């Protein structure tokens, strides 16, 4: 009886805390745009529509995806997605823990790039995605994410997977890409990648989720040049199939921008390659 009363006591306390939190509402992410961008939007009399619009939205998630997209040259910051719990306004761009920077390509302003280097908690992913798409109107989405070999199940082969290895998931509106293998069941994607893809599926936006395998070095999972190489290869195959009906319409300058960054990617991460094993 004493144990029961103690347990109920704890239960009622924790319930009150939860009720308070729910009634107060969890803080939602905020989108902040640069003055220059706001001025452009005001000048174009597009204040009634969504703040940002474009043809393609590229999203880089955590270490691998954001690293790949961060190497794109000639992009400029146009805004920030401020995550809950942050009191810093204006946001400090050096603090990647709380912000997701939004860029546009200088050569092609209708290509938007978002990446966040830190892991967004699972319970916040839906809110982050909702806030992003409330203010961003795009025709298609490509998400760059990574996965670890320890969580990957390949029923067709007993071989341990090694990078570079890439898999794809897509919404039903997106055309299938034959050259990139599917992220096959029973594997599940989760967190931000899953949230974005689900949102795009519900709102009938063609979207691709590219998943590249993380490398293992000294017992840690990390993105190396092999991980980025897989993204590069998958990107080229995605671009090559742009002529498919209902597919994503990529322009040539995106291709050239990624190509010029191929060498930079190799330089940045080549030091981490181990030649212990040949």
């Amino acid at each position, binding site marked *: 009886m004493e144990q029961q009363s103690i347990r109920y006591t704890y239960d009622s306390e924790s319930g009150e805390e939860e009720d308070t939190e729910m009634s107060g509402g969890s803080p939602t992410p905020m989108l902040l745009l640069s003055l220059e961008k706001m001025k452009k939007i005001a000048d174009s009399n597009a204040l009634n529509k969504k703040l940002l619009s474009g043809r393609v939205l590229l999203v880089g998630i955590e270490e691998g995806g954001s690293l790949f997209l961060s190497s794109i040259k000639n992009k400029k910051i146009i805004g920030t997605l401020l995550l809950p719990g942050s009191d810093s306004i204006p946001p400090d761009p050096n603090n990647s823990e709380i912000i997701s920077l939004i860029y546009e390509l200088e050569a092609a302003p209708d290509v938007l790039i978002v990446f966040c280097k830190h892991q967004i908690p699972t319970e916040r992913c839906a809110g982050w995605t909702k806030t992003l798409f409330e203010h961003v109107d795009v025709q298609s989405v490509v998400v760059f994410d990574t996965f670890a070999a320890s969580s990957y199940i390949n029923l067709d082969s007993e071989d341990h997977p090694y990078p570079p290895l890439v898999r794809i998931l897509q919404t039903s509106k997106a055309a299938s890409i034959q050259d990139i293998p599917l992220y096959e069941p029973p594997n599940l994607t989760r967190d931000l990648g899953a949230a974005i893809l689900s949102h795009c599926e519900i709102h009938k936006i063609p979207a691709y989720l590219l998943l590249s395998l993380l490398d293992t070095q000294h017992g840690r999972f990390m993105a190396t040049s092999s991980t980025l190489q897989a993204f590069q290869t998958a990107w080229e195959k995605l671009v090559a199939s742009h002529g498919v009906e209902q597919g994503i319409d990529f322009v040539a300058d995106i291709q050239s921008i990624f190509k010029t960054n191929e060498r930079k990617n*190799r330089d940045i991460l080549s030091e981490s390659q181990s030649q212990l094993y040949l």
Partner: protein
Amino acid sequence: MTSSYDRALTVFSPDGHLFQVEYALEAVRKGTCAVGVRGQDCVVLGVEKKSVLKLQDPRTVRKIVMLDDHICMAFAGLSADARVLVNKARIECQSYRLSVEDPVTVEYITRYIAGVQQKYTQSGGVRPFGISTLIIGFDPHDKTPKLYQTDPSGIYSAWKANAIGRSSKTVREFLEKNHKDDLSKEESIKLTVKSLLEVVQTGAKNIEITIMSAGNIIENLKVDEVDKIVKEIEEEKKEADKKKKPGTGASIQ
């Protein structure tokens, strides 16, 4: 259970395992893939190369090495262990030549390498070599191509085609489906490249091919030659896909 029996090389586990040898096989799987294909009158070695670092001399990072004029070897696993084993094998080849006044046979040097590897599984204070090897060549005065494989346990055997290193199981399954006896030189090379393309996603720039023909003729294909073969394979694959799909090419998933 394994923790009690996996630290000392010379101790069997109750169920008959030598865990250090099995761990050495895991080290082999960390190396990139190497493939050997035996044709009618040639034998081909293909390897997946790792990209060299920016300031590194690529000639000093090799996965295919010569043991003698008529014998070639590819390895997968710890590169430092490979260097030591290759040096021992090269000395043995020359010692044999000087003693017997004849070059070694492929089987002899394979047996020697496997014997060294086995010795290091049965001595105290040492560990097994963390490499598997594919050895190709022609015996003196013989035009029959030979392909052998050794592994850290000291086992060796002759093969028509085999693969070692990462994703070797996938490649071996591909070879089992596609290999046939009496392959011509072009067919052997193409099969080697095709099997590597199953696991190498980056294309010709990370593939190295060495062909050995009778009369000690050794060819190392250049990158553009490998690229040409890769393109031919991709074209053939596209043609085969087109033939499979009727009409406009819509696929059912």
